C-alpha cells in the first residue's frame, strides 16, 4: 500500500464515485427468495405488508443472477451446504450475506453430525442476525447494519479503474 496510490483513492473523483455508487447499492438490496428452515417464515413476514421490507429497497428476487444479498434463513445441513455455496457463487458481485438465526450463525441447538456449525465456515458472512428465530424487526436491523457497512466500503475496489490507480 503506497502513499501515492492511497492519495489517488482518496481523491475527489474516487470518493465521489464511492458515494454515488454506494448510495445506489445500499438503496436497492435485492435478496434471493431463499429460505431453508423456520427462520424463512420470519423472513417472509418481514417482506410482507405488515413489516414491508420494500420501503428499504429490499425486494426479493427469484434468481441469484438478479440478487445482491443472500439471507441464509435456517439450519444448513451438510447435504445442503454445497447448494448454498453455489447459490452464493452464482450471484453477481458485489454481493453480501446475512446469516439469519442461531442455526445459520453457529448451528444452534443442532450440534449433530448432519448440521454445518455456522454459515461462516463456507461463505463470507457480512451481518449476523441472532435469534431463534429473529423477529422481522431484527432482520430489518440487519439490513440497516448492512447498509451502514456498504456506506463505508470502497465501491470501486476490484474494478479496472481501481487497478489503474495502482496495487
Amino acid at each position, binding site marked *: 500500500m503506497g502513499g501515492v496510490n492511497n492519495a489517488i483513492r482518496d481523491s475527489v473523483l474516487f470518493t465521489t*464515485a464511492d458515494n454515488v*455508487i454506494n448510495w445506489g447499492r445500499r438503496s436497492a438490496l435485492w435478496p434471493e427468495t431463499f429460505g431453508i428452515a423456520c427462520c424463512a417464515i420470519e423472513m417472509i413476514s418481514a417482506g410482507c405488508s405488515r413489516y414491508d421490507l420494500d420501503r428499504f429497497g429490499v425486494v426479493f428476487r427469484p*434468481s*441469484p*443472477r438478479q440478487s445482491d444479498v443472500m439471507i441464509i434463513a435456517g439450519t444448513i445441513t451438510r447435504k445442503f451446504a*454445497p*447448494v*448454498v455455496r*453455489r*447459490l452464493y*457463487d*452464482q450471484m453477481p*458481485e*458485489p454481493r453480501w450475506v446475512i446469516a439469519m438465526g442461531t442455526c445459520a450463525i453457529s448451528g444452534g441447538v443442532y450440534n449433530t453430525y448432519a448440521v454445518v456449525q455456522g454459515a461462516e465456515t463456507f461463505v463470507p458472512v457480512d451481518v449476523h442476525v441472532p435469534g431463534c428465530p429473529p423477529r422481522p424487526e431484527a432482520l430489518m436491523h440487519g439490513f440497516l447494519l448492512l447498509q451502514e457497512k456498504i456506506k463505508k466500503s470502497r465501491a*470501486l*475496489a*476490484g*474494478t*479496472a*479503474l481501481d487497478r*489503474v490507480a495502482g496495487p
Partner: protein
Amino acid sequence: MPKPLPLAPASPVPKGVDCGLSKAHGVLSGQCDMTGMEFLPVLFMVAGIVLVAVATLFVSSLLRPSNPYPAKNMPYECGMDPAGEAAGGRFRVQFFILAILFVIFDVETMFLFPWAVVLKEIGLVGYVEMFVFMLLLLVGFAYAWLKGALEWEV
C-alpha cells in the same frame, strides 16, 4: 438500410429531374440526385448509436467489478447440478435454420410487393430482374435442402 429497387433505365422518370413522381408511387428511386444526401441523417443516427453503445460498454467495463469463475458461470438450476438436454452446455437448435430460411423468403416477399406496384413502369428489364433475384434465392434454397437443412433430426 433501404435497398434501391431494381428499377430499369427504361423508366419514364427522367434522371435527376423529378423527385416527386417516384415518391408518389411509394418508391425510393435511385434516380434522384438528392438520394445521397437524403440518407445522411440515417448515417448520423447509426454513427451516434454505435458511439453511445461503445462508450457505455467502455465506461461500465472500467467501473464494474469483474470476477468470472467456473462455478459462477454455470447454468443456474437452483444450486443443483444441471440435468437434461442443457447439461452439456450447448444443444441443437432445430428451429434456427428454419427461422433463417423463413427470413430469407420473408424479405423476398417484401420486395415482391413494391415490384408488383411499379411493374408496368419498369418494363421488361425490371420484370426479368426480379426473376433473376428469385432464381438466386432458389439456388440457395436448393443448396440448403440438399445439405439436409429441412430434415428434422430428433
